[in-house]
């Protein structure tokens, strides 16, 4: 099976966090763990700039979290989705150290790691894709196969302050914000 992937058009992202909330509403998420997080990047490059990067687990082709997990609780499925089996998690939190994207989220309530599962229950049931992507009001966040999203013009797996994509080969592609300011 092909690898699933997220696609984030940064120049169409308003930072509204609808994806974050859609994720919580879909997955019954509580306060604390944030499977998807919108990060705001600010800086100065001949004038101030700001943009938002919506990111969850990138279901990496090289899942360093799974490699680091001592109890084998993290597995990569044949469709590329990286899932945590909480019954196997012992809360060592090494996955969180290993992940360059802060995807594994430790729940103080359950004492287990949890993270984005690409709404695998929806994928498996054939009822749609990740709730975050389907809820995005501007279509800045989409999903597809890695082959599809990698073909989009200008797509890159890393830009600006994002980690070197070679660390994990994330199944995500971004269209960065490129501004020519007058």
């Amino acid at each position, binding site marked *: 099976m092909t690898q699933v992937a997220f696609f984030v058009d940064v120049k169409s992202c308003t930072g509204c966090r609808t994806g974050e909330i859609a994720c919580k509403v879909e997955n019954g998420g509580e306060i604390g763990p944030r499977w998807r997080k919108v990060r705001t990047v600010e800086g100065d490059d001949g004038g101030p700039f700001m943009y938002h990067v919506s990111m969850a687990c990138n279901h990496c082709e090289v899942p360093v979290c799974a490699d680091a997990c001592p109890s*084998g609780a993290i597995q990569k499925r044949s469709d590329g989705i990286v899932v945590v089996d909480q019954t196997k998690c012992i809360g060592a939190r090494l996955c969180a150290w290993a992940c*360059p994207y802060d995807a594994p989220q430790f729940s103080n309530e359950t004492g287990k790691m949890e993270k984005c599962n690409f709404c695998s229950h929806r994928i498996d049931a054939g009822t749609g894709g990740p709730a975050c992507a389907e809820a995005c009001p501007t279509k800045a966040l989409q999903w597809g196969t890695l082959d599809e999203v990698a073909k989009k013009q200008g797509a890159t797996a890393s830009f600006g302050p994002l980690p070197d994509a070679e*660390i994990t080969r994330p199944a995500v592609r971004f269209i960065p914000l490129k501004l020519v300011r007058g």
Partner: protein
Amino acid sequence: MVPRDWALVVFTVLTQAAVGAFLTLLILRNLTATAETPLRSCARWAHATVLAVLALGMVAALFHLSEPFEAVRAVVNVRSSWLSREVIFGGLFSLRLGALLLMEWRETRWSRVTHWLGWTAAATAVTFLVCQIKIYLLPAQPVWNSLATPLAFAGTALRLGVLGVAVGLVCCRVDETSREQKSVHSDGTTFATLRGLALLGLVGLVAELVVMALQLAPLADAMPAAALASARRLTEDYAGVLVTRLLLLVVAAACIVVVIVGKVSGQTHKLPAMTIVAFVVVLVSEVCGRFLFYASRVTVGI
């Protein structure tokens, strides 16, 4: 850093001390194989102490887990997880050390089997240390993913190992000499050993300065961003701990120099106390250092 990371501070410092002390003891024994070396009479107690420290460290590690009663699962992913490997080699080291201790208890003189056990235990201990280091060599954590981590971990083993053994040495001597009213200084072999250990300890302290330099280097070249953030944490958020650690290192170095020189205000019999002070100061400084190690972690990216 979360409170649970303190378990790792205790775990790494204690187990590294155990590894260092065990290797030091083994090397000492073999350097002076024929002579009636000072520690020979206390060897069993020394190994017992090392095992106790090791066990204490391993138990402390459980508190890092949110499911300590399921800790045994930590060995499942030996195929790729350095933590699984660490647990396995930590366990193996404990077992071999335990077996060695059993042998020693039965027969003070080392048999061929005891020697074999000693050397395999040493190899396991080194592997254990390597696994510990490898856990932290994560590209996602630039402040860890450098020479600083092996230097820091091996340095801890060296400093606490040799100084720990030095403390054992003086305690052992004090115990024996109290009856004979002889100073440590008057026993040539013991003093030479103590000086040697102290010298190694001093080397260890220098290694730590290199570690700190590596951690703070990003302040100069501002790259990479996460490493810079780590360095900023050290110099801004935890400046107090950092300075304390530096001061402790200086104090420890001064104590060690005194031990090497062999005199305190012309009074040589203060050397055991000075050795113990050096060890305690280094121990506290190791805890500070390891706290900083965990506290300065800043993941790459955003």
